[in-house]
């Protein structure tokens, strides 16, 4: 039998349902894998083997009792450490929350539990999900399983690395400007950003509230769809949550049929700054879509070039306010309370000590963009750009059903390369940001390896809000065609750890 850790979530679920293995066995296999490789990957910030086995035993007991279980019951999952968990610490990758144990579960956490998923632990991330490399974690970087000297993407780099390194078949992530799609792309796995409001933000430690979107990581499109359905859907605790049925993403992933579909290639996402190997794989993917019966046209989204600047005003503005609550008064770190200092001084000392450089940069930038005298010129203008980008999408989606682009302009870059060059780092999100600004559905699916470095390249597929099923349908078609061309998944080409 194939090693349990190499199995997809759907396969594991089927094996368990058939009684061929148990949740405990599956959990143990993944715990063993984590013990064997995570020293080199450092995907997890927290694991609790005994707690994991306990969850697994509970699922096995429910199954033994004849309970009807969800389609992913007993499947292990790595959980991004930005969702609150009652029984595990929650740090958001920040020193300011070191050791904090939330008194409540995020909605996503609660739904994972309700679906019988076994939470292996909490994964590393850029501090407060701000970054594209996971280097901004206060707890050290996570490494890319394809090349451990390189970044696994970010901010959900712990989750992408855990899935790519077979430490977990599934993982959660959050995507504010590309934090699921870009890590999925650079680690050769699937990552989806649901429609904004399609998955609940309750218990997701906020970075930029109007952009943050929880979504799934998996090694196959079907697995991602299964996880998407497991935790998405309306949540009365999140006022921005959409009160509509979850789009039929699992059905779409199974169908994988795109004949007649109209596909738009975004003209603006090409040229300078795009690695040759990325462009080559992307062009091939477009040809593949055509060969599968899609009608491909080029479309222009003239305002997308302003998406990055608009994003780096809107996201920091919201973050400067969202992160104000970390003030040493009610929870988390407190520095310098020697009895003589005032609350104001203790707040400022704690925040200076507890936040890393990128978080401080963004807080300062956001404070600037919102401050009196600058609001109209910066935050106000960025909100107008947001309108223009949404209109570009609307115009494009009148012509085509989905848009495609490379997920990110380059393959995984070396750790440290962009660490103190914020503008270079920000370019990693160039192609992913527009969908966050417009609230679209989008996905990244592997489309090959770049010739020059042999590292994974991702294809991004974007669809209008609430048309999540469309991106899964296209991704599954691409996956099926490429895997038959490659005789297996792309990840099989990754070096053994």
């Amino acid at each position, binding site marked *: 039998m194939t090693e349990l850790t190499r199995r997809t979530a759907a396969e594991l679920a089927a094996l368990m349902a058939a009684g061929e293995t148990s949740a405990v066995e599956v959990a143990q296999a993944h715990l063993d894998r984590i013990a064997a490789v995570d020293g080199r990957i450092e995907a997890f910030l927290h694991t609790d083997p005994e707690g994991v086995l306990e969850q697994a035993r509970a699922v096995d007991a429910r199954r033994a009792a004849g309970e009807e279980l969800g389609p992913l019951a007993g499947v292990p999952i790595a959980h991004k450490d930005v969702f609150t968990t009652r029984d595990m610490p929650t740090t958001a990758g920040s020193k300011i929350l070191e050791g904090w144990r939330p008194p409540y579960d995020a909605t996503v956490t609660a739904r994972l539990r309700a679906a019988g998923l076994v939470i292996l632990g909490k994964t590393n991330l850029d501090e407060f999900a701000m970054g594209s490399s996971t280097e901004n974690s206060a707890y050290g970087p996570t490494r890319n399983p394809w090349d451990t000297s390189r970044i696994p993407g970010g901010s959900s780099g712990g989750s992408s690395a855990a899935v790519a390194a077979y430490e977990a078949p599934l993982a959660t992530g959050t995507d504010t400007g590309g934090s699921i799609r870009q890590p999925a792309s650079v680690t050769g796995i699937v990552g989806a950003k649901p429609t904004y409001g399609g998955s609940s933000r309750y218990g997701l430690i906020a970075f930029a509230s109007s952009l943050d979107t929880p979504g799934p990581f998996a090694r196959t499109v079907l697995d991602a769809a299964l996880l998407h359905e497991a935790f998405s859907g309306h949540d009365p605790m999140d006022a921005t949550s959409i009160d509509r049925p979850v789009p039929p993403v699992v059905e779409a992933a199974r169908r994988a049929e795109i004949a007649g579909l109209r596909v738009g290639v975004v003209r603006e996402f090409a040229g300078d700054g795009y690695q040759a190997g990325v462009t080559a794989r992307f062009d091939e993917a477009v040809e593949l879509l055509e060969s599968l019966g899609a009608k491909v046209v080029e479309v222009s989204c003239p305002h997308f070039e302003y998406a990055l600047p608009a994003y780096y005003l809107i996201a920091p503005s919201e973050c400067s306010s969202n992160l104000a609550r970390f003030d040493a008064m009610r929870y988390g770190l407190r520095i310098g309370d020697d009895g003589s200092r005032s609350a104001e001084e203790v707040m*400022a000392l704690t925040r200076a000590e507890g936040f890393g450089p990128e978080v401080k940069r963004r807080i300062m930038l956001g404070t600037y963009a919102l401050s009196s005298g600058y609001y109209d010129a910066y935050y106000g203008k960025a909100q107008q750009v947001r*309108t223009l980008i949404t209109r570009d999408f609307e115009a494009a989606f009148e012509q085509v059903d989905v848009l495609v682009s490379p997920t990110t302009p380059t393959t995984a870059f070396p750790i440290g390369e962009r660490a103190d060059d914020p503008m270079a780092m920000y370019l990693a999100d160039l192609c992913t940001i527009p969908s966050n600004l417009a609230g679209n559905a989008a996905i990244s699916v592997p489309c090959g390896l770049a010739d020059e470095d042999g590292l994974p390249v991702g294809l991004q597929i974007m669809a209008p809000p609430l048309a999540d099923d469309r991106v899964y349908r296209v991704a599954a078609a691409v996956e099926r065609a490429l895997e038959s061309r490659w005789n297996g998944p792309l990840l099989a080409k990754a070096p053994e750890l």
Partner: protein
Amino acid sequence: MSAITRDEVAHLARLSRLALGEDELDHLAAQLDVIISAVARVQEVTAEDIPPTSHALPLTNVYRPDEVRPSLSPEEALAGAPAAEDQRFRVPRILGEEA
């Protein structure tokens, strides 16, 4: 000309409640200058008549019923507190006005 002065950066640090050292302020001032110059590009495209977008999707009127739900216990509420006293959060002395 720089987009932001060192004094402005120091003012932003105070507004943001960040006690930054001189070196950190210098470093940040240089980086913010680059970033602000770059993001200022948003000013190129926007005409006055474009409505701003604050929310990704156009939802309105989301309310919850006026129903009481269980609160945390005081122990849970205070469990994460850096300091507590008499079932209250203990905080350093507060400057400024009386609320």
